[in-house]
């Protein structure tokens, strides 16, 4: 049983499973069987096959990390709604982690970095009916108390590795629920400009000059925006260019 007491609806209903392949997949299969209360939280103590972007895997040590999914039903009919929902969740996650690690930043589109190491990631899966989002499953993975990572994850870190202190995982999840609820309500209220400003202020490498790998070659540029289509906008000597995810690599 996971108790989340400081929210109105996010995490009020929680389903704790000892083992799941993926909390998102579990949430989606439950949603196919029938409706879930908005804010329903699914936590897998041992998530064995957590997913990153299409095909990528993330291995989490059992009981050490925040491996959850939250079900929301934004039912918003606005073209760019899903991108703002993503920004709302990313900002909420960043702010939760900043309580312990004030230097945490948001890496476009929705990872959280401490220095140059990844500490958390988000995978959002929406269901669209026509142009409306019927439900949105927020998959959130945060390395909390895990101390070692596999070879393939040399650039991963955790809260315990950065602070030297283990956290009460339940308190962490409760705090995350609270942050998500606040940002989600502000999103539903249409406060997109506030979200956009808060997102950019937390953005990793925002307004800094760095080298990026694009299909045209290496490019010295700075991030100046994340536009309404969710694309990353880089400013270089060549002017401004908007990139889709996977069209450029950070170097």
């Amino acid at each position, binding site marked *: 049983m996971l108790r989340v007491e400081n929210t109105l609806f996010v995490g009020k209903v929680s389903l704790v499973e000892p083992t799941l392949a993926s909390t998102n997949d579990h949430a989606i299969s439950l949603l196919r069987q029938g409706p879930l209360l908005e804010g329903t939280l699914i936590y897998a103590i041992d998530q064995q096959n957590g997913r990153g*972007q*299409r*095909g990528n895997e993330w291995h989490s040590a059992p009981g050490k990390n925040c491996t959850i999914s939250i079900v929301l039903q934004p039912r918003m009919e606005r*073209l760019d709604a*899903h*991108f703002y929902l*993503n920004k709302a969740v990313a900002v909420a996650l960043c702010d939760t982690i900043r309580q312990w690690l004030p230097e945490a930043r948001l890496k476009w*589109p*929705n990872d959280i970095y401490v220095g140059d190491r990844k500490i958390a990631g988000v*995978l*959002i*899966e*929406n*269901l*669209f*009916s*026509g*142009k409306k989002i*019927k439900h949105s499953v927020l998959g959130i993975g945060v390395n909390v108390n895990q101390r070692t990572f596999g070879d393939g994850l040399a650039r991963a870190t955790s809260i315990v590795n950065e602070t030297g202190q283990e956290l009460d995982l339940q308190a962490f999840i409760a705090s995350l629920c609270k942050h998500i609820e606040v940002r989600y309500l502000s999103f539903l209220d249409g406060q997109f400009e506030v979200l956009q400003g808060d997102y950019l202020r937390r953005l990793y490498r925002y307004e800094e000059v760095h080298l990026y790998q694009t299909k045209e070659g290496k490019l010295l540029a700075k991030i100046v925006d994340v536009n309404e*289509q*969710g*694309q990353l906008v880089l400013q270089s000597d060549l002017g401004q260019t908007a990139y*889709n*995810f996977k069209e450029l690599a950070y170097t």
Partner: protein
Amino acid sequence: MDFQQIQDLIKLVDEKELTELKIKSDGFKISIRSKHYNKNGGNHYQTIAAAPMSQMLPLAQQSPPQVQSPAQPVATSEATASTNGETSGAEDSEYVTIKSPMIGTFYRSPGPDKDPFVKVGDTIEKGNVLCIVEAMKLFNEIESEQTGKIIKVLVEDASPVEYDQPLFLIAP
């Protein structure tokens, strides 16, 4: 497959007015599609040759432009078929079009090695998931608002789609 066979293929593409040459990366076959392929409402793949992929791929990639250029996305070849009168405007209007709610990448299956959500000829119900459109790491399942039968899949798997671009034709 040797060079002679590749040449024969090119000749065949030319003579038969084929519109698509398809090469499965982890399979053993080349599929070739003629521009009349949807005349009878089905996918008429012709298996022209079967050989291990490892041998075929590099050769196929080197093939001259005659082979490359007809390998257009399905949408293009179907557009051609429509203008040729294969599907009349009147018939088209009987169908419901499922459109993309966003800019992104169209996927027909839930994962790289999974079966497609739906195929041409499948009967679907309202609420069935038809595809995924991915945009900036957000995965958007698109469900059918309509009960009916899939008549056409208008976009090739893993290709970019625009906002409002038709994805499927459904006969209610």
